[in-house]
């Protein structure tokens, strides 16, 4: 009886752990496999707009045809290289700005009294209650030549003619930083909030001024929060499409826009898939290795 229960219990536990795996298989691995498959295919005017990988050659022979030309194309045309580098640069700078703004905010919230803390956190996530697209559109109204910001600057007399902000890199940075800031603040706050304040007192007791205690204790201990926040901002920002197309210079090459053009304007699904796969390989794999190294260094330590 107990043995059977135990077996049942074990099976129940397996079921529970199976849920996230199932989720990843259905919503990540299978779509990824499909995109990978398309990236090795050749475009054709049909529905779907690419050739199948598998052919029946004769009666009983299944032939697989991998087309590597799409990937070769990415290397040959330096449009793609430029777009990748541009995207990584923009995402990197935006991540840095988010960190510089987000860290003090997260720190201040974590140090405020428990009741104000909840209100402030609510305010941080409040923008999520309106559509992302609407919020980006709102920035057009603020940044355009006769928009809110220019009119304000004209009114206080800092400038005497409107200042071109929309359709510049500046607008893209503003849009990305604004949209992704909460993703920086949330993990940082979660980390800073559980910092043991007696560690700071211990540092002061051993001769640190408050800023030195911050630099030697708070900052290194918040590293996991910094990494989590940066990844949460950087990864989606690299593939960002909406913000550069609405706020940025139409000529600005970003990999998200290239992807869109390949899919919907050129209807070249195989090349578009190759772009997506390359993006994944360039970004996610180094990040995975980096995280594994971090975990090994922490040695199952403090934040577990």
């Amino acid at each position, binding site marked *: 009886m107990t043995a059977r229960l135990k077996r049942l219990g074990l099976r129940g536990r397996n079921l529970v752990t199976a849920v996230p795996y199932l989720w990843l298989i259905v919503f990540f691995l299978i779509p990824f496999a499909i995109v990978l498959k398309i990236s090795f295919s050749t475009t054709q005017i049909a529905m779907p707009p690419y050739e199948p990988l598998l052919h029946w050659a004769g009666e009983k022979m299944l032939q697989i045809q991998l087309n590597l030309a799409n990937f070769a194309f990415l290397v040959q045309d330096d449009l793609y290289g430029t777009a990748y580098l541009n995207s990584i640069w923009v995402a990197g700078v935006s991540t840095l700005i988010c960190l510089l703004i987000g860290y003090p905010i997260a720190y201040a919230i974590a140090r405020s009294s428990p009741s104000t803390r909840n209100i402030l956190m609510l305010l941080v996530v409040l923008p999520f209650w309106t559509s992302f697209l609407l919020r980006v559109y709102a920035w057009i109204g603020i940044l355009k030549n006769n928009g809110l910001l220019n009119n304000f600057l004209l009114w206080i007399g800092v400038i005497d003619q409107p200042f071109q902000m929309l359709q510049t890199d500046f607008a893209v940075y503003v849009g990305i930083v604004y949209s992704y800031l909460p993703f920086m603040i949330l993990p940082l706050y979660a980390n800073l909030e559980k910092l043991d304040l007696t560690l700071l*007192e211990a540092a*002061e*007791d*051993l*001769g640190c001024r408050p800023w*030195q205690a911050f630099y030697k*204790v708070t900052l290194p*201990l918040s590293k996991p929060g910094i990494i989590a926040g940066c990844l949460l901002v950087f990864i989606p920002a690299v593939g960002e499409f909406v913000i550069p197309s609405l706020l940025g210079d139409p000529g600005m090459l970003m990999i998200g826009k290239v992807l869109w053009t390949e899919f919907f304007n050129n209807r070249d699904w195989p090349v578009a898939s190759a772009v997506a796969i390359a993006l994944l390989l360039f970004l996610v794999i180094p990040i995975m290795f980096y995280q594994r190294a971090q975990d090994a260094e922490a040695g*199952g*330590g403090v934040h577990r």
Partner: protein
Amino acid sequence: MSTSPRAAQQKFEPWKDPEAKPYVRIEKITKQFGDFLAVDDVSLDIYKKEIFCLLGASGCGKTTLLRMLAGFERPTSGRIYIDGVDMTSIPPYERPVNMMFQSYAVFPHMTVEQNVAFGLKQEGLPRTEIAKRVVDMLDLVKLGQFAKRKPHQLSGGQRQRVALARSLVKKPKLLLLDEPLAALDKKLREHTQFELINIQETLGVTFIVVTHDQEEAMTLSSRIGLMNHGEIIQVGTPSEMYEYPASRFAAEFIGSVNMFEGRLIEDEPSYVRIECDDLEVPIYVDHGISSSPGATVWAAIRPEKIMMSREKPQQADNWASAIVQDIAYMGDMSIYLLRLDSGKVVRITQPNTYRHADDRITWDERVHLSWHPESPVVVTK
């Protein structure tokens, strides 16, 4: 009661020397949180090389007083002098004082070695000197082979020693220890108590130790400051605190005691007689006290100072008759709970000198208690 290892040494009693200058002077310190008085008008003089224990129940303000010495809290009023210098408004990082936190507060992102070196690096000492002092200190606290470990790879006792080493390596004039042994198990705690005393004597640092454990205070300290509700109730050596408690609270907090409430019926300079409702005959004490006849007083008698026999004592005072209600065999001694005819239960202890004693007094026997005239301590509050 444990005996202090200091008792065996030559007399160390700077507080009795009118010439001696106190090393730490706490002058009328008060600390309020809102309208709550956490520390209430405390004045203390603590001398060089003392181990001074602040003893008191949880919440009585010990930590708050210690944190004011370290500089983490500003007193609401009063002043603190260390080595003659007014420290009241000096920030913690400029005080010649180090604190060992109750939670140890060992830096989790640094190895044992880095933790110990932290304060020295902060002083900007040369690298070779830092390395040498860290090695010496780790040897002293027997952590040499753990130098490269991170705190999460250490046991509680080892973390405690990292915290101790980290604060001692700075060679502070004064080390503040907040419940340094509370998180350790009993065996380790007793062992560490003696280690602490050895280290303190080796380095000649002045210790102020906070504890809620009276046995720990008795073992460690040169003097004890007993606290209650933010006030210092009594200051004295462990034996003074035990043998001459100044109040019912002090008598009951340190060790166990039998408290007899009564009225002063004879009040002479050389003796007093106290009549108690619980006793058939008066208590006779062979020294005078300063109180007026008829006043309510309490006579406190320690369990080991009461004798027990089957025969009725010959003396007129200082005895009682009782029934054995319970016996607890503790190995080295036995505790007897004896019920007086009034219903009051008296606790006495007897050493188990002989392994087999067939005529040992046992349950439900009628016995007689007696004590010497010098044994009771009379307190008036």
